[in-house]
Protein backbone atom coordinates (compact mmCIF):
# COMPACT_ATOMS: atom_id res chain seq x y z
CA UNK A 1 0.00 0.00 0.00
CA UNK A 2 2.70 2.43 1.04
CA UNK A 3 4.93 1.48 -1.87
CA UNK A 4 1.99 1.70 -4.25
CA UNK A 5 1.10 5.23 -3.17
CA UNK A 6 4.74 6.26 -3.18
CA UNK A 7 5.11 5.19 -6.82
CA UNK A 8 1.85 6.92 -7.77
CA UNK A 9 3.10 10.03 -6.03
CA UNK A 10 6.50 9.99 -7.68
CA UNK A 11 4.93 9.55 -11.12
CA UNK A 12 2.61 12.52 -10.57
CA UNK A 13 5.36 14.50 -8.87
CA UNK A 14 7.82 14.06 -11.72
CA UNK A 15 5.34 15.64 -14.14
CA UNK A 16 4.95 18.58 -11.75
CA UNK A 17 8.73 18.80 -11.58
CA UNK A 18 9.03 18.88 -15.38
CA UNK A 19 6.70 21.87 -15.56
CA UNK A 20 8.20 23.53 -12.49
CA UNK A 21 11.65 23.51 -14.11
CA UNK A 22 10.44 25.88 -16.83
CA UNK A 23 9.05 28.32 -14.28
CA UNK A 24 12.17 28.27 -12.20
CA UNK A 25 14.62 28.69 -15.11
CA UNK A 26 12.73 31.62 -16.60
CA UNK A 27 12.38 33.20 -13.19
CA UNK A 28 16.07 32.68 -12.49
CA UNK A 29 17.01 34.62 -15.60
CA UNK A 30 14.49 37.42 -16.04
CA UNK A 31 12.56 37.26 -12.70
CA UNK A 32 9.28 36.83 -14.54
CA UNK A 33 6.51 34.48 -13.45
CA UNK A 34 5.76 33.04 -16.86
CA UNK A 35 2.05 32.45 -16.47
CA UNK A 36 1.79 31.20 -20.03
CA UNK A 37 3.93 28.21 -19.09
CA UNK A 38 0.92 26.11 -18.07
CA UNK A 39 -0.59 26.73 -21.51
CA UNK A 40 2.61 25.61 -23.20
CA UNK A 41 2.21 22.38 -21.26
CA UNK A 42 -1.36 22.14 -22.61
CA UNK A 43 -0.26 22.83 -26.20
CA UNK A 44 2.41 20.14 -25.81
CA UNK A 45 -0.23 17.63 -24.76
CA UNK A 46 -2.41 18.52 -27.76
CA UNK A 47 0.43 18.30 -30.26
CA UNK A 48 1.41 14.91 -28.85
CA UNK A 49 -2.17 13.69 -29.05
CA UNK A 50 -2.53 14.96 -32.61
CA UNK A 51 0.65 13.23 -33.72
CA UNK A 52 -0.38 9.91 -32.16
CA UNK A 53 -4.06 9.97 -33.13
CA UNK A 54 -3.99 11.63 -36.57
CA UNK A 55 -0.55 10.82 -37.92
CA UNK A 56 -0.27 7.40 -36.24
CA UNK A 57 3.14 8.31 -34.97
CA UNK A 58 5.15 6.32 -32.47
CA UNK A 59 4.63 7.66 -28.97
CA UNK A 60 8.23 8.73 -28.40
CA UNK A 61 8.42 10.39 -31.79
CA UNK A 62 5.20 12.26 -31.02
CA UNK A 63 6.67 13.48 -27.77
CA UNK A 64 9.75 14.75 -29.62
CA UNK A 65 7.59 16.61 -32.14
CA UNK A 66 5.58 18.15 -29.28
CA UNK A 67 8.79 19.29 -27.63
CA UNK A 68 10.02 20.88 -30.87
CA UNK A 69 6.75 22.69 -31.50
CA UNK A 70 6.65 24.02 -27.95
CA UNK A 71 10.26 25.14 -28.12
CA UNK A 72 9.35 27.33 -31.07
CA UNK A 73 6.19 28.50 -29.31
CA UNK A 74 8.09 29.40 -26.15
CA UNK A 75 10.68 31.41 -28.05
CA UNK A 76 7.96 33.12 -30.07
CA UNK A 77 6.00 34.09 -26.95
CA UNK A 78 9.11 35.57 -25.39
CA UNK A 79 9.83 37.59 -28.53
CA UNK A 80 6.34 38.98 -28.91
CA UNK A 81 5.00 39.37 -25.40
CA UNK A 82 7.93 39.64 -22.98
CA UNK A 83 10.90 41.15 -24.76
CA UNK A 84 9.30 44.56 -25.42
CA UNK A 85 8.46 44.71 -21.73
CA UNK A 86 11.82 43.81 -20.30
CA UNK A 87 12.57 47.35 -19.20
CA UNK A 88 9.14 48.16 -17.78
CA UNK A 89 7.56 47.21 -14.47
CA UNK A 90 7.44 43.52 -13.67
CA UNK A 91 3.72 43.63 -13.17
CA UNK A 92 3.18 44.71 -16.78
CA UNK A 93 5.12 41.69 -17.95
CA UNK A 94 3.04 39.54 -15.64
CA UNK A 95 -0.22 40.86 -17.11
CA UNK A 96 1.18 40.32 -20.58
CA UNK A 97 1.96 36.71 -19.62
CA UNK A 98 -1.58 36.27 -18.38
CA UNK A 99 -2.85 37.71 -21.68
CA UNK A 100 -0.84 35.11 -23.59
CA UNK A 101 -2.22 32.42 -21.32
CA UNK A 102 -5.85 33.43 -21.95
CA UNK A 103 -5.10 33.71 -25.67
CA UNK A 104 -3.61 30.22 -25.94
CA UNK A 105 -6.26 28.44 -23.91
CA UNK A 106 -9.12 30.04 -25.82
CA UNK A 107 -7.36 29.25 -29.09
CA UNK A 108 -7.12 25.61 -28.03
CA UNK A 109 -10.78 25.63 -27.08
CA UNK A 110 -11.69 26.99 -30.52
CA UNK A 111 -9.62 24.43 -32.38
CA UNK A 112 -10.15 21.31 -30.29
CA UNK A 113 -13.48 22.00 -28.59
CA UNK A 114 -14.35 22.15 -24.91
CA UNK A 115 -14.45 18.44 -24.08
CA UNK A 116 -11.47 16.41 -22.93
CA UNK A 117 -9.87 14.05 -25.41
CA UNK A 118 -8.05 10.81 -24.70
CA UNK A 119 -5.11 9.06 -26.29
CA UNK A 120 -5.95 6.00 -28.41
CA UNK A 121 -5.35 2.77 -26.52
CA UNK A 122 -2.66 1.72 -28.91
CA UNK A 123 -0.56 4.77 -28.03
CA UNK A 124 1.25 3.03 -25.24
CA UNK A 125 0.45 -0.56 -24.23
CA UNK A 126 0.00 -0.51 -20.44
CA UNK A 127 0.92 -3.58 -18.45
CA UNK A 128 0.80 -4.15 -14.73
CA UNK A 129 3.85 -5.36 -12.90
CA UNK A 130 3.31 -6.96 -9.50
CA UNK A 131 5.88 -6.03 -6.93
CA UNK A 132 4.99 -7.39 -3.51
CA UNK A 133 1.48 -6.07 -2.89
CA UNK A 134 1.94 -3.08 -5.19
CA UNK A 135 0.68 -2.82 -8.75
CA UNK A 136 3.00 -0.73 -10.85
CA UNK A 137 1.96 0.07 -14.39
CA UNK A 138 4.49 0.35 -17.19
CA UNK A 139 3.02 3.79 -17.80
CA UNK A 140 4.19 5.01 -14.41
CA UNK A 141 7.62 3.56 -15.05
CA UNK A 142 7.67 5.34 -18.42
CA UNK A 143 6.78 8.66 -16.80
CA UNK A 144 9.38 8.31 -14.09
CA UNK A 145 12.01 7.12 -16.58
CA UNK A 146 11.41 9.83 -19.17
CA UNK A 147 11.31 12.56 -16.51
CA UNK A 148 14.52 11.33 -14.92
CA UNK A 149 16.29 11.25 -18.32
CA UNK A 150 15.10 14.75 -19.20
CA UNK A 151 16.13 16.17 -15.83
CA UNK A 152 19.55 14.54 -16.03
CA UNK A 153 20.09 15.98 -19.51
CA UNK A 154 19.02 19.37 -18.22
CA UNK A 155 21.51 19.13 -15.37
CA UNK A 156 24.15 18.18 -17.91
CA UNK A 157 23.34 21.13 -20.17
CA UNK A 158 23.30 23.62 -17.31
CA UNK A 159 26.37 22.32 -15.49
CA UNK A 160 28.72 21.03 -18.17
CA UNK A 161 28.18 22.89 -21.44
CA UNK A 162 29.28 26.32 -22.51
CA UNK A 163 25.74 27.55 -23.08
CA UNK A 164 24.78 26.27 -19.63
CA UNK A 165 27.62 28.27 -18.14
CA UNK A 166 26.30 31.33 -19.98
CA UNK A 167 22.83 30.62 -18.58
CA UNK A 168 24.15 30.47 -15.05
CA UNK A 169 26.11 33.67 -15.58
CA UNK A 170 23.05 35.48 -16.95
CA UNK A 171 20.93 34.39 -14.03
CA UNK A 172 23.64 35.48 -11.60
CA UNK A 173 23.90 38.97 -13.03
CA UNK A 174 22.21 39.99 -16.26
CA UNK A 175 24.22 43.14 -16.93
CA UNK A 176 27.63 41.77 -16.07
CA UNK A 177 26.96 38.74 -18.24
CA UNK A 178 26.20 41.06 -21.14
CA UNK A 179 29.46 42.93 -20.51
CA UNK A 180 31.37 39.63 -20.60
CA UNK A 181 30.26 39.16 -24.19
CA UNK A 182 27.38 36.80 -23.56
CA UNK A 183 24.53 37.27 -25.99
CA UNK A 184 21.87 37.54 -23.29
CA UNK A 185 18.98 37.71 -25.73
CA UNK A 186 20.06 34.42 -27.20
CA UNK A 187 20.43 32.90 -23.72
CA UNK A 188 16.96 34.03 -22.72
CA UNK A 189 15.49 32.51 -25.89
CA UNK A 190 17.40 29.31 -25.19
CA UNK A 191 16.06 29.19 -21.63
CA UNK A 192 12.51 29.59 -22.88
CA UNK A 193 13.12 26.83 -25.44
CA UNK A 194 14.47 24.44 -22.81
CA UNK A 195 11.70 25.13 -20.32
CA UNK A 196 8.99 24.82 -22.97
CA UNK A 197 10.38 21.52 -24.23
CA UNK A 198 10.25 20.08 -20.71
CA UNK A 199 6.70 21.36 -20.23
CA UNK A 200 5.66 19.78 -23.55
CA UNK A 201 7.09 16.43 -22.48
CA UNK A 202 5.23 16.80 -19.20
CA UNK A 203 2.03 17.59 -21.10
CA UNK A 204 2.23 14.46 -23.26
CA UNK A 205 2.98 12.30 -20.20
CA UNK A 206 0.14 13.79 -18.12
CA UNK A 207 -2.25 13.42 -21.08
CA UNK A 208 -1.35 9.76 -21.22
CA UNK A 209 -1.48 9.26 -17.43
CA UNK A 210 -4.99 10.67 -16.96
CA UNK A 211 -5.98 9.84 -20.53
CA UNK A 212 -7.47 13.32 -20.85
CA UNK A 213 -6.27 16.34 -22.80
CA UNK A 214 -8.37 19.48 -22.55
CA UNK A 215 -7.98 23.19 -23.22
CA UNK A 216 -8.08 24.09 -19.51
CA UNK A 217 -5.64 21.49 -18.22
CA UNK A 218 -2.85 24.05 -18.18
CA UNK A 219 -4.29 26.29 -15.49
CA UNK A 220 -4.31 24.03 -12.43
CA UNK A 221 -1.22 22.08 -13.51
CA UNK A 222 0.59 25.35 -14.08
CA UNK A 223 -0.41 26.76 -10.71
CA UNK A 224 0.64 23.61 -8.88
CA UNK A 225 3.93 23.43 -10.75
CA UNK A 226 4.53 27.08 -9.91
CA UNK A 227 3.80 26.25 -6.28
CA UNK A 228 6.32 23.42 -6.57
CA UNK A 229 8.95 25.77 -7.97
CA UNK A 230 8.40 28.24 -5.13
CA UNK A 231 8.36 25.45 -2.56
CA UNK A 232 11.78 24.31 -3.72
CA UNK A 233 13.07 27.86 -3.87
CA UNK A 234 12.34 29.69 -7.11
CA UNK A 235 15.38 30.05 -9.36
CA UNK A 236 16.91 26.80 -8.11
CA UNK A 237 16.82 23.85 -10.53
CA UNK A 238 17.27 21.05 -7.94
CA UNK A 239 14.69 22.92 -5.85
CA UNK A 240 12.08 22.63 -8.60
CA UNK A 241 12.67 18.89 -8.88
CA UNK A 242 12.44 18.42 -5.13
CA UNK A 243 9.37 20.65 -4.85
CA UNK A 244 7.59 18.83 -7.66
CA UNK A 245 8.21 15.39 -6.20
CA UNK A 246 7.23 16.54 -2.71
CA UNK A 247 3.95 18.04 -3.89
CA UNK A 248 3.11 15.00 -6.01
CA UNK A 249 3.75 12.54 -3.20
CA UNK A 250 1.87 14.53 -0.53
CA UNK A 251 -1.05 15.06 -2.88
CA UNK A 252 -1.35 11.32 -3.56
CA UNK A 253 -1.03 10.47 0.12
CA UNK A 254 -3.61 13.11 1.01
CA UNK A 255 -6.05 11.63 -1.49
CA UNK A 256 -5.33 8.12 -0.22
CA UNK A 257 -6.02 9.28 3.34
CA UNK A 258 -9.53 10.27 2.27
CA UNK A 259 -9.18 13.98 1.58
CA UNK A 260 -9.86 13.69 -2.14
CA UNK A 261 -12.30 16.60 -2.20
CA UNK A 262 -9.52 18.79 -0.81
CA UNK A 263 -7.09 17.57 -3.46
CA UNK A 264 -6.29 20.95 -5.00
CA UNK A 265 -5.86 22.60 -1.61
CA UNK A 266 -3.26 20.12 -0.33
CA UNK A 267 -0.42 21.44 -2.46
CA UNK A 268 -1.10 25.05 -1.52
CA UNK A 269 -1.50 24.33 2.19
CA UNK A 270 1.95 22.75 2.29
CA UNK A 271 3.33 25.66 0.33
CA UNK A 272 1.92 28.27 2.69
CA UNK A 273 3.27 26.45 5.75
CA UNK A 274 6.72 25.88 4.29
CA UNK A 275 7.02 29.53 3.27
CA UNK A 276 6.13 30.68 6.77
CA UNK A 277 8.99 28.64 8.21
CA UNK A 278 11.42 29.13 5.37
CA UNK A 279 10.47 32.26 3.43
CA UNK A 280 12.68 31.55 0.38
CA UNK A 281 11.67 27.94 -0.16
CA UNK A 282 13.47 24.72 0.69
CA UNK A 283 16.59 25.18 -1.43
CA UNK A 284 16.31 28.90 -2.11
CA UNK A 285 19.21 31.20 -1.49
CA UNK A 286 18.84 33.65 1.34
CA UNK A 287 18.81 37.08 -0.20
CA UNK A 288 20.56 39.83 1.67
CA UNK A 289 18.81 43.03 0.80
CA UNK A 290 20.41 46.41 1.20
CA UNK A 291 19.12 49.87 0.61
Amino acid at each position, binding site marked *: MLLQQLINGIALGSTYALIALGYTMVYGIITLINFAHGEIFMVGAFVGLLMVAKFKMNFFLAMLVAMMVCMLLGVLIERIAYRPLRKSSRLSALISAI*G*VSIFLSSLAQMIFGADAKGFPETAFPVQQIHLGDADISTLQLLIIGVSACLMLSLEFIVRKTKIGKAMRATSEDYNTAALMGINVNMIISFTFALGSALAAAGGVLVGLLFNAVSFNMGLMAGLKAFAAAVLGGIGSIPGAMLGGLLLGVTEVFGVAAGYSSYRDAIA*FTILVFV*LMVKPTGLLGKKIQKKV
Partner: protein
Amino acid sequence: MGDTLQMLLGRIDPYLLQIIVNIGIGIVLALGLNVITGLTGQLSLGHAAFMSIGAFTSALITIKLGLPFGVNLLITGAVSAAAGALIGYPILRLTGDYLAICTLGFAEIVKVIFLNLEITNKALGLSVPPPRSSIPLPIIVWLVVIIAVILVSFIHDSRFGRALKAIRGDEIAAEAMGINVVRYKVQSFAIGTFLAGVGGGLYAHFISYINPSDFGFLKSIDILGMVVLGGLGSIPGSIVGAAVLSAAPEFLRFMANYRMLVYGGLLVFMMIFRPNGLMGGINFTEIFLRALGRKPHMKTLTEKEKLP
Protein backbone atom coordinates in the same frame (compact mmCIF):
# COMPACT_ATOMS: atom_id res chain seq x y z
CA MET B 1 -38.48 57.30 -2.77
CA GLY B 2 -37.52 53.78 -3.76
CA ASP B 3 -40.37 53.56 -6.24
CA THR B 4 -39.45 56.77 -8.07
CA LEU B 5 -35.84 55.65 -8.34
CA GLN B 6 -36.96 52.26 -9.56
CA MET B 7 -39.12 53.94 -12.18
CA LEU B 8 -36.25 56.13 -13.34
CA LEU B 9 -34.00 53.09 -13.65
CA GLY B 10 -36.75 51.34 -15.59
CA ARG B 11 -36.15 53.80 -18.41
CA ILE B 12 -32.58 52.66 -18.88
CA ASP B 13 -32.06 49.72 -21.18
CA PRO B 14 -31.71 46.67 -18.85
CA TYR B 15 -28.69 45.37 -20.74
CA LEU B 16 -26.92 48.72 -20.45
CA LEU B 17 -27.87 48.89 -16.77
CA GLN B 18 -26.32 45.49 -16.23
CA ILE B 19 -23.04 46.65 -17.79
CA ILE B 20 -23.13 49.82 -15.67
CA VAL B 21 -23.59 47.82 -12.47
CA ASN B 22 -20.82 45.41 -13.49
CA ILE B 23 -18.52 48.37 -13.99
CA GLY B 24 -19.44 49.73 -10.55
CA ILE B 25 -18.67 46.44 -8.82
CA GLY B 26 -15.44 46.20 -10.81
CA ILE B 27 -14.41 49.67 -9.61
CA VAL B 28 -14.96 48.74 -5.93
CA LEU B 29 -12.90 45.57 -6.33
CA ALA B 30 -10.15 47.29 -8.31
CA LEU B 31 -9.88 50.14 -5.79
CA GLY B 32 -9.41 47.59 -3.01
CA LEU B 33 -6.64 45.80 -4.85
CA ASN B 34 -5.12 49.15 -5.83
CA VAL B 35 -4.56 49.93 -2.15
CA ILE B 36 -2.70 46.62 -1.69
CA THR B 37 -0.82 46.33 -4.97
CA GLY B 38 -0.77 49.86 -6.32
CA LEU B 39 -0.12 51.88 -3.18
CA THR B 40 1.72 49.43 -0.95
CA GLY B 41 3.36 47.44 -3.76
CA GLN B 42 2.34 44.02 -2.42
CA LEU B 43 1.36 41.77 -5.30
CA SER B 44 -1.79 39.85 -4.36
CA LEU B 45 -3.09 37.11 -6.65
CA GLY B 46 -5.90 36.15 -4.29
CA HIS B 47 -8.23 39.12 -4.31
CA ALA B 48 -11.15 37.00 -5.52
CA ALA B 49 -10.90 34.89 -2.35
CA PHE B 50 -11.82 37.88 -0.22
CA MET B 51 -14.52 38.72 -2.71
CA SER B 52 -15.92 35.22 -2.23
CA ILE B 53 -15.72 35.53 1.56
CA GLY B 54 -17.71 38.74 1.21
CA ALA B 55 -20.17 37.25 -1.24
CA PHE B 56 -20.98 34.24 0.94
CA THR B 57 -21.07 36.25 4.18
CA SER B 58 -23.41 38.78 2.66
CA ALA B 59 -25.62 36.13 1.08
CA LEU B 60 -25.87 34.20 4.35
CA ILE B 61 -26.69 37.37 6.29
CA THR B 62 -29.54 38.11 3.90
CA ILE B 63 -30.77 34.50 3.95
CA LYS B 64 -30.44 33.69 7.66
CA LEU B 65 -30.68 37.05 9.43
CA GLY B 66 -32.39 39.30 6.93
CA LEU B 67 -30.59 42.42 8.11
CA PRO B 68 -30.99 45.68 6.13
CA PHE B 69 -28.58 45.81 3.21
CA GLY B 70 -26.49 48.72 4.49
CA VAL B 71 -25.76 46.96 7.78
CA ASN B 72 -25.22 43.75 5.86
CA LEU B 73 -22.52 45.36 3.68
CA LEU B 74 -20.75 46.84 6.69
CA ILE B 75 -20.66 43.48 8.51
CA THR B 76 -19.57 41.77 5.30
CA GLY B 77 -16.73 44.23 4.82
CA ALA B 78 -15.66 43.82 8.44
CA VAL B 79 -15.63 40.02 8.16
CA SER B 80 -13.52 40.16 5.00
CA ALA B 81 -11.16 42.70 6.53
CA ALA B 82 -10.78 40.49 9.61
CA ALA B 83 -10.01 37.52 7.36
CA GLY B 84 -7.58 39.69 5.41
CA ALA B 85 -5.77 40.83 8.54
CA LEU B 86 -5.70 37.31 9.94
CA ILE B 87 -4.19 35.91 6.75
CA GLY B 88 -2.11 38.98 6.09
CA TYR B 89 -0.35 39.01 9.43
CA PRO B 90 1.73 35.86 8.85
CA ILE B 91 2.14 36.06 5.07
CA LEU B 92 2.89 39.74 4.64
CA ARG B 93 6.33 39.08 6.09
CA LEU B 94 7.14 37.42 2.80
CA THR B 95 8.26 39.59 -0.06
CA GLY B 96 7.62 39.85 -3.79
CA ASP B 97 6.72 36.71 -5.64
CA TYR B 98 6.68 34.56 -2.52
CA LEU B 99 3.88 36.70 -1.22
CA ALA B 100 2.13 36.49 -4.59
CA ILE B 101 2.14 32.70 -4.63
CA CYS B 102 1.03 32.59 -1.00
CA THR B 103 -2.00 34.74 -1.71
CA LEU B 104 -2.72 32.57 -4.74
CA GLY B 105 -2.45 29.43 -2.62
CA PHE B 106 -4.65 30.93 0.03
CA ALA B 107 -7.28 31.76 -2.59
CA GLU B 108 -7.31 28.16 -3.79
CA ILE B 109 -7.67 26.94 -0.20
CA VAL B 110 -10.62 29.27 0.44
CA LYS B 111 -12.27 28.07 -2.76
CA VAL B 112 -11.89 24.41 -1.80
CA ILE B 113 -13.15 25.05 1.73
CA PHE B 114 -16.27 26.77 0.40
CA LEU B 115 -16.75 23.88 -2.02
CA ASN B 116 -16.86 21.50 0.96
CA LEU B 117 -18.84 23.53 3.51
CA GLU B 118 -22.39 22.51 4.31
CA ILE B 119 -23.58 26.05 5.02
CA THR B 120 -22.50 27.36 1.60
CA ASN B 121 -24.32 24.47 -0.09
CA LYS B 122 -21.06 22.85 -1.28
CA ALA B 123 -20.51 22.76 -5.03
CA LEU B 124 -24.14 23.62 -5.79
CA GLY B 125 -23.72 27.22 -4.73
CA LEU B 126 -26.24 29.57 -3.16
CA SER B 127 -29.22 31.37 -4.58
CA VAL B 128 -29.28 34.85 -3.14
CA PRO B 129 -32.61 36.61 -2.47
CA PRO B 130 -32.86 40.32 -3.35
CA PRO B 131 -31.31 42.67 -0.79
CA ARG B 132 -33.46 44.12 1.99
CA SER B 133 -33.47 47.74 0.97
CA SER B 134 -35.91 50.20 -0.56
CA ILE B 135 -33.23 51.73 -2.78
CA PRO B 136 -32.68 49.76 -6.01
CA LEU B 137 -29.41 47.82 -6.20
CA PRO B 138 -27.79 49.72 -9.13
CA ILE B 139 -28.00 52.93 -7.11
CA ILE B 140 -26.58 51.26 -4.01
CA VAL B 141 -23.68 49.97 -6.11
CA TRP B 142 -22.86 53.43 -7.37
CA LEU B 143 -23.25 54.98 -3.92
CA VAL B 144 -20.71 52.46 -2.67
CA VAL B 145 -18.45 53.35 -5.62
CA ILE B 146 -18.56 57.03 -4.65
CA ILE B 147 -17.82 56.26 -1.00
CA ALA B 148 -14.97 53.93 -2.01
CA VAL B 149 -13.42 56.53 -4.33
CA ILE B 150 -13.56 59.15 -1.58
CA LEU B 151 -12.11 56.73 0.98
CA VAL B 152 -9.23 55.65 -1.24
CA SER B 153 -8.44 59.21 -2.38
CA PHE B 154 -8.35 60.18 1.25
CA ILE B 155 -5.92 57.34 2.02
CA HIS B 156 -3.85 58.19 -1.04
CA ASP B 157 -2.90 61.64 0.19
CA SER B 158 -2.86 61.04 3.93
CA ARG B 159 0.06 60.40 6.24
CA PHE B 160 -0.97 56.75 6.19
CA GLY B 161 -0.90 56.69 2.38
CA ARG B 162 2.56 58.27 2.29
CA ALA B 163 3.79 55.53 4.61
CA LEU B 164 2.36 52.93 2.24
CA LYS B 165 4.08 54.57 -0.73
CA ALA B 166 7.34 54.60 1.21
CA ILE B 167 6.98 50.85 1.73
CA ARG B 168 6.35 50.44 -1.99
CA GLY B 169 9.46 52.42 -2.80
CA ASP B 170 11.79 50.52 -0.50
CA GLU B 171 10.82 48.44 2.46
CA ILE B 172 14.13 48.61 4.26
CA ALA B 173 14.48 52.35 3.79
CA ALA B 174 10.91 52.80 5.03
CA GLU B 175 11.70 50.75 8.10
CA ALA B 176 14.79 52.84 8.73
CA MET B 177 12.56 55.93 8.66
CA GLY B 178 10.60 54.51 11.56
CA ILE B 179 7.67 53.07 9.65
CA ASN B 180 6.32 49.88 11.20
CA VAL B 181 6.32 47.99 7.90
CA VAL B 182 4.36 44.90 8.92
CA ARG B 183 1.68 46.90 10.72
CA TYR B 184 1.12 49.23 7.76
CA LYS B 185 1.11 46.33 5.32
CA VAL B 186 -1.50 44.46 7.36
CA GLN B 187 -3.60 47.61 7.64
CA SER B 188 -3.48 48.26 3.91
CA PHE B 189 -4.34 44.61 3.33
CA ALA B 190 -7.33 44.94 5.65
CA ILE B 191 -8.59 48.03 3.79
CA GLY B 192 -8.18 46.32 0.44
CA THR B 193 -9.95 43.18 1.61
CA PHE B 194 -12.72 45.27 3.19
CA LEU B 195 -13.49 46.70 -0.24
CA ALA B 196 -13.16 43.24 -1.80
CA GLY B 197 -15.72 41.93 0.68
CA VAL B 198 -18.15 44.77 -0.01
CA GLY B 199 -17.68 44.24 -3.75
CA GLY B 200 -18.37 40.55 -3.24
CA GLY B 201 -21.55 41.31 -1.29
CA LEU B 202 -22.80 43.60 -4.08
CA TYR B 203 -21.86 40.99 -6.67
CA ALA B 204 -23.73 38.22 -4.82
CA HIS B 205 -26.96 40.22 -4.67
CA PHE B 206 -26.64 41.49 -8.20
CA ILE B 207 -25.97 38.09 -9.83
CA SER B 208 -28.31 36.41 -7.27
CA TYR B 209 -26.51 33.10 -7.59
CA ILE B 210 -23.00 32.41 -6.32
CA ASN B 211 -20.78 29.40 -6.64
CA PRO B 212 -17.32 28.99 -5.08
CA SER B 213 -15.88 28.16 -8.50
CA ASP B 214 -16.78 31.65 -9.75
CA PHE B 215 -14.10 33.11 -7.51
CA GLY B 216 -11.11 31.24 -8.85
CA PHE B 217 -7.71 32.38 -10.00
CA LEU B 218 -9.10 33.90 -13.20
CA LYS B 219 -11.32 36.27 -11.23
CA SER B 220 -8.33 37.46 -9.20
CA ILE B 221 -6.47 37.99 -12.44
CA ASP B 222 -9.38 39.94 -13.88
CA ILE B 223 -9.22 42.37 -10.97
CA LEU B 224 -5.43 42.63 -11.14
CA GLY B 225 -5.79 43.33 -14.85
CA MET B 226 -8.06 46.28 -14.09
CA VAL B 227 -5.54 47.77 -11.67
CA VAL B 228 -2.49 47.27 -13.88
CA LEU B 229 -4.26 48.31 -17.07
CA GLY B 230 -5.42 51.54 -15.46
CA GLY B 231 -2.07 52.27 -13.88
CA LEU B 232 -0.75 51.10 -10.54
CA GLY B 233 -1.53 53.40 -7.66
CA SER B 234 -3.71 55.67 -9.77
CA ILE B 235 -7.32 56.07 -8.64
CA PRO B 236 -8.66 57.38 -11.99
CA GLY B 237 -6.68 54.52 -13.50
CA SER B 238 -8.52 51.91 -11.42
CA ILE B 239 -11.83 53.42 -12.48
CA VAL B 240 -10.93 53.45 -16.18
CA GLY B 241 -9.35 49.99 -15.97
CA ALA B 242 -12.41 48.54 -14.27
CA ALA B 243 -14.70 50.19 -16.79
CA VAL B 244 -12.71 48.96 -19.80
CA LEU B 245 -12.26 45.39 -18.58
CA SER B 246 -15.81 45.01 -17.24
CA ALA B 247 -17.30 46.29 -20.45
CA ALA B 248 -14.83 44.72 -22.91
CA PRO B 249 -16.32 41.20 -22.84
CA GLU B 250 -19.73 42.76 -23.58
CA PHE B 251 -18.50 44.89 -26.47
CA LEU B 252 -16.59 41.93 -27.83
CA ARG B 253 -19.73 39.80 -27.64
CA PHE B 254 -20.41 40.25 -31.35
CA MET B 255 -17.34 38.14 -31.98
CA ALA B 256 -18.84 35.41 -29.81
CA ASN B 257 -16.29 32.63 -30.21
CA TYR B 258 -13.26 34.87 -30.62
CA ARG B 259 -14.06 36.94 -27.55
CA MET B 260 -11.55 35.52 -25.08
CA LEU B 261 -8.96 35.19 -27.83
CA VAL B 262 -9.17 38.89 -28.61
CA TYR B 263 -9.28 39.74 -24.90
CA GLY B 264 -6.03 37.87 -24.27
CA GLY B 265 -4.38 39.52 -27.25
CA LEU B 266 -5.61 42.94 -26.13
CA LEU B 267 -4.03 42.51 -22.71
CA VAL B 268 -0.65 41.82 -24.34
CA PHE B 269 -0.88 44.76 -26.73
CA MET B 270 -2.04 47.19 -24.06
CA MET B 271 0.91 46.23 -21.92
CA ILE B 272 3.38 46.59 -24.79
CA PHE B 273 2.17 50.01 -25.83
CA ARG B 274 1.34 51.43 -22.40
CA PRO B 275 3.34 49.38 -19.91
CA ASN B 276 2.52 51.72 -17.03
CA GLY B 277 -1.19 51.45 -17.66
CA LEU B 278 -3.63 53.72 -19.42
CA MET B 279 -3.53 56.38 -16.73
CA GLY B 280 -0.08 55.66 -15.34
CA GLY B 281 2.33 58.58 -15.24
CA ILE B 282 -0.39 61.14 -15.92
CA ASN B 283 -0.57 63.76 -13.25
CA PHE B 284 -4.15 64.79 -12.74
CA THR B 285 -3.40 67.54 -10.25
CA GLU B 286 -1.31 69.30 -12.90
CA ILE B 287 -3.93 68.89 -15.60
CA PHE B 288 -6.59 70.16 -13.24
CA LEU B 289 -4.58 73.19 -12.18
CA ARG B 290 -3.66 73.96 -15.79
CA ALA B 291 -7.30 73.86 -16.72
CA LEU B 292 -7.96 76.40 -13.99
CA GLY B 293 -5.20 78.54 -15.48
CA ARG B 294 -2.97 78.14 -12.48
CA LYS B 295 0.17 76.46 -13.53
CA PRO B 296 1.75 74.66 -10.59
CA HIS B 297 5.38 74.57 -9.68
CA MET B 298 6.58 72.19 -12.38
CA LYS B 299 9.41 70.53 -10.53
CA THR B 300 7.38 69.11 -7.69
CA LEU B 301 4.47 67.87 -9.70
CA THR B 302 5.86 66.42 -12.91
CA GLU B 303 8.30 64.07 -11.29
CA LYS B 304 6.93 60.67 -12.10
CA GLU B 305 6.38 58.48 -9.13
CA LYS B 306 8.49 55.39 -9.27
CA LEU B 307 6.57 52.21 -9.84
CA PRO B 308 7.60 48.97 -8.20
